[in-house]
């Protein structure tokens, strides 16, 4: 395991595994049963992760380059916008493209029909300005994309030669064989994929059982009955939204046991499940005890605070440099999968202020910085000339 060539990636696909088999190394092959392109080991500790369908979000998740298997991500959103819904659609579309089993709770089939269309693997679709091509440090070619956030960990395992120039021909061939871990999607198109029909829709129907019990049973049944290597994605849009859920669903004794059991379902060692849940914060504020318990029962908690619409004009005129889109809101991370379960800390992404931008092609998360105040020029100049003493005036 340790002496494997790292740049190839463990999820190298079927042909690699068969090659290993043919060279009479059954142990090695057994150690890497991952023939699933949608799953790859985390660069941090090797646990299997799967992509959220948005590379920027993958990179945010505490160095794992994806959502670790068995973990849930709760996305809370303020206001009436639906940025979290876009993230959910990316997540669902990625699952469809990777032939994973997608379960959608409480949404009709129309939801699945509006999944964003596939552009291609995220590395190709990523139009990164190839500025630093020439001045790369050749010695650390493996790590060259680890440091910067936009490319981040998710990009590091991709064939390096997408940005390299020397070995580009060979590696391009390599990439054609290698299935991508994360794809790029276009929100204005519709996804057409053969396995889109495999999405399961679990309705929020009233039965004589307590609410949520039937949902949990259906999820559990389909997870336990599927072949052992199937990867599942559970999608719960707008949890507790009163237009979807009955009032009694927001009672703690109804919702919390469900989330707890979902956690139990996902932590079973044989199950390979990830889940993404969104929740409207305008209806259920974070300052309430119930929401705090919902957060405590999830492995990752992210809040989206979209800017009010008038802020767009401000931001465009301000310090946003050319070529960058203005941020549409602030993203706060309260808890990241695995990292906070261990106690937190030591992640370069923790504690930063993030801004997000949703464009047609991607959901991008960038460090947030306030632009300098625009209309304050006179004051600044005035301050510079009069209030600040000249250097010569300062005598020590």
């Amino acid at each position, binding site marked *: 395991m340790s002496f494997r060539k790292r740049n190839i990636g463990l999820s190298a696909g079927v042909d690699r595994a068969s090659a290993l088999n043919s060279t009479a190394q059954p142990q090695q092959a057994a150690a890497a049963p991952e023939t699933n392109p949608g799953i790859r080991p985390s660069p941090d500790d090797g646990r299997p992760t799967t992509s959220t369908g948005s590379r920027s979000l993958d990179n945010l998740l505490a160095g794992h380059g994806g959502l670790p298997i068995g973990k849930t991500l709760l996305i809370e959103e303020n206001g009436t916008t639906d940025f979290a819904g876009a993230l959910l659609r990316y997540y669902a579309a990625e699952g469809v493209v990777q032939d994973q089993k997608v379960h959608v709770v409480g949404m009709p089939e129309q939801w699945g029909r509006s999944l964003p269309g596939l552009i291609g693997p995220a590395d190709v679709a990523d139009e990164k300005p190839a500025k630093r091509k020439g001045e790369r440090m050749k010695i650390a070619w493996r790590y060259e994309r680890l440091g910067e956030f936009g490319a981040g960990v998710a990009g590091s395992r991709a064939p390096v030669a997408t940005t390299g120039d020397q070995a580009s021909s060979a590696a391009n061939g390599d990439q054609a064989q290698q299935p991508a871990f994360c794809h790029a999607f276009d929100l204005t198109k519709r996804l057409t994929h053969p396995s889109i029909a495999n999405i399961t829709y679990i309705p929020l129907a009233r039965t004589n059982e307590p609410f949520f019990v039937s949902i949990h049973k259906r999820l*559990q049944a389909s997870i*336990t009955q599927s072949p052992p290597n199937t990867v599942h994605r559970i999608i719960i849009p707008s949890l507790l939204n009163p237009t979807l859920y009955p009032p009694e669903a927001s009672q703690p*004794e109804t919702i919390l046991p469900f989330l*707890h059991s979902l956690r139990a379902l996902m932590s079973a060692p044989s199950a390979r499940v990830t889940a993404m849940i969104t929740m409207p914060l305008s209806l259920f504020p974070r300052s*309430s005890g*119930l929401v*705090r*318990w919902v957060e405590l029962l999830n492995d990752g908690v992210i809040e989206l605070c979209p800017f009010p619409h008038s802020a767009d004009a401000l931001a465009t005129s301000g310090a946003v440099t050319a070529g960058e889109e203005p941020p549409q809101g602030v993203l706060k991370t309260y808890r990241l999968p695995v990292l906070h379960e261990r106690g937190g800390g030591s992640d370069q992404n923790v504690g930063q202020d993030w801004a997000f931008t949703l464009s047609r092609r991607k959901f991008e998360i960038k460090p947030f910085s306030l632009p300098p105040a625009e209309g304050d020029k006179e004051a600044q100049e005035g301050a510079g000339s009069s209030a600040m003493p000249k250097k010569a005036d300062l005598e020590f």
Partner: protein
Amino acid sequence: MPAQPPLPPLLAPYVSSLPQSSLTVLSSVLGATGNWLVLRFLYAALSAPSNSETAFGLNGSEGVKNRKVVLVSFLRGWEFWRSEAKRLVSFYPSMCIFYCGFEGLDLARLTDKRQFAFVDGLSELFYNPTTATATPRPSFPGTAAPRTVLPVRSQPSPVPARTPQPVPRPGNVSTNPASREIGPVKRLHLSGNGTAALDALERDIATVIKQLKAPIPGEADEPEVLLILDQPDLLLAATGPSKGIGATEMGDWVMGLQQNTHATILTLSSDSPLIHNASASAPQPATPLETEHAAFAIGSAHRAQMVMQLRNLETGAARDVSGVLRVSKGGAWGQNEAGAEGSWEEREVLYFVQRDGGVSVFGRGE
């Protein structure tokens, strides 16, 4: 930052001397979880005598005690605790590949050696998984299962067989240490209402404690059992008044469990909405969840000898600080005779959990 042993020196006096029949409350918040501290308690109690001798010697206790631990976890499964305990390596992580094998805390092996028992409050607490496959499983409201019934192996579940077999019924004595099963042997089920449901859980946990206490030939003295209740406040939050479980019932439940053990550690969430919304000065009226949680948390702190609070750094996140640990005396401090409670002082320190699982604890400015 220099490497620190699995039990950082600043932390050692707090985690390694727990007085007789004491309660220690460990409170955490969303962004500063207490699992690492629970692991340090485990390490202090279970690590090999060669390591712990010095730690215990400091506190004037009579050498190495026969210590055992029962961990009841309501939010995290066996896999998490097992893999995280393995990471408690005392050599520095760069050497980890070579030392992991025999350092660290192997909970599976300790389970076999009957020094440790895990009670799984996550897997089947609320929804019984076998109901989905329509296996007839009688639900015992008060676990009145006669003890004379022979241990019954659970039916082969549709879950592929890597999961350890759960004990099928509460109340059955079937923990056979000789069996090669690794993993949780007891899974808790919550059924019924009110104190009856809690009593059933208490009986299940007490059974596990008794099995662990049962003398093994070759062991001289009565073992000291440390009980760690990991986030039982979930029970309170997820049941609510309609099920007849409130802060008082939970307090009684913990007290009942304390009677079986040498010392008890209770971890709780103490996020501000769960504590402060219940106060009279809160802007909006508190929900029952908030009132009961606050009552339970504050009541437990009053009954505790020591309260360890974890919280985020007030000044925002930092790259080399994970959070703040405050150790203070609980409401029950000083009730025992002097000297029996160890020598420690109230303190506030910073801690940092490294990527490799190591923790360093240091004072402000150090």
